[in-house]
């Protein structure tokens, strides 16, 4: 037998086995991508709506809020937010927003998804000082603008938070809403000065 016949038989045999193997090539990849995503997100720096509200009330000059919704949807944003629609995110007009290390950008859209994706892209591009607003605008609207009375039996912590939210809501909207009578005690004063609160994980 010459080499060609031998090699033909050998590769056909291997090929025959390969042909009946179940295709499983994508399992490992998907798992891997998910793992990467989780790892990246664990390192993500979040601001909760309460933290952001405090920083805004205290007038922290290093906070810049970026609203990622499309222009047509840019209504009733978080006060002071700058609207950067997704499609113009990487235009040169806005490059200065990310290519810097002075300001802290807090990104939000209606929910977490869009902002998270943008955060991942700009983080992978190497830009620092970008944060995510946990829960996005919907969380802001629910927790800050329409806080729900946690109930008399709630922990002191929850009650304190509720009071703060009421105060902040008043600060932003001017609406007065009397809290239930049994909660009538002095509100804790808004935080003064430039307090920069950091969430776990570190982005210097």
């Amino acid at each position: 037998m010459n080499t060609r016949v031998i090699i033909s038989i050998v590769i056909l045999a291997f090929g025959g086995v390969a042909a009946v193997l179940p295709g499983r090539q994508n399992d490992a990849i998907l798992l891997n991508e998910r793992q990467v995503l989780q790892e990246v997100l664990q390192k993500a720096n979040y601001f909760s709506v309460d933290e952001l509200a405090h920083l805004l009330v205290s007038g922290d000059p290093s906070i810049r809020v970026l609203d990622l919704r499309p222009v047509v949807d840019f209504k009733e944003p978080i006060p002071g937010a700058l609207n950067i629609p997704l499609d113009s995110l990487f235009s040169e007009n806005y490059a200065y927003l990310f290519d810097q290390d002075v300001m802290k950008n807090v990104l939000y859209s209606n929910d977490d998804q869009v902002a998270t994706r943008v955060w991942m892209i700009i983080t992978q591009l190497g830009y620092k000082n970008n944060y995510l607003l946990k829960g996005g605008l919907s969380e802001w609207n629910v927790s800050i603008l329409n806080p729900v009375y946690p109930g008399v039996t709630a922990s002191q912590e929850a009650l304190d938070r509720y009071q703060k939210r009421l105060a902040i809501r008043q600060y932003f909207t001017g609406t007065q809403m009397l809290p239930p009578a049994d909660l009538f005690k002095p509100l804790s004063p808004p935080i003064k000065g430039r307090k920069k609160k950091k969430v776990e994980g570190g982005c210097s």
Partner: protein
Amino acid sequence: MGPIIPINDISMEINFLIAFLVGLGFGFALEQAGFSSSRKLAGMFYGYDTVVLKVFFTAAITAMLGLVFLNYFELIDLGVVYINEYYIESAIIGGVIMGLGFIVGGFCPGTSVCAAAIGKIDAIAFLGGSFLGILAFGETYPLWENIYMKNYLGGLKLSDAVGISDGLLVFGVIAAAVLMFWIGEWAEKRFGRPDITKEI
């Protein structure tokens, strides 16, 4: 689990050392196969020597089968392995120009390096020419940019495009190769040029 270097974050220096060793094997195999001779390579297109066909397909099939089996036994993560990105127009146009270069020049870049290493002057000329060609592309890039970037389909696999399993596609390639090997050896008899083959 492979690929070892990207998964384990191995240092640049070791990576380059491995690049050199892999290249060593590559060059050695090419030279042993006779790819350092332009007349042997060109024999492919006139039928008197089909070593290119045999080596090229045996190598591709060995690697294909290896990847399919390594993947099956979870020894390699094909998600990390680089899959060439597909741009329809540029792949075809580039291939046509390269094919023309092959029949005119008698080498391809890899084989020209290998042939230059053993002192083939035509290979050194080919190598010099390829620098000029790359420079020409770089200088005229704005003219081609549109077509170069057109119709991007990502790292698309033929098996996914056709909708069959990787293993089945490999079997198809093997069947085609076995047929081509047979035709190749027939052609070597039919179009044999002993006057050329004894020289190279």
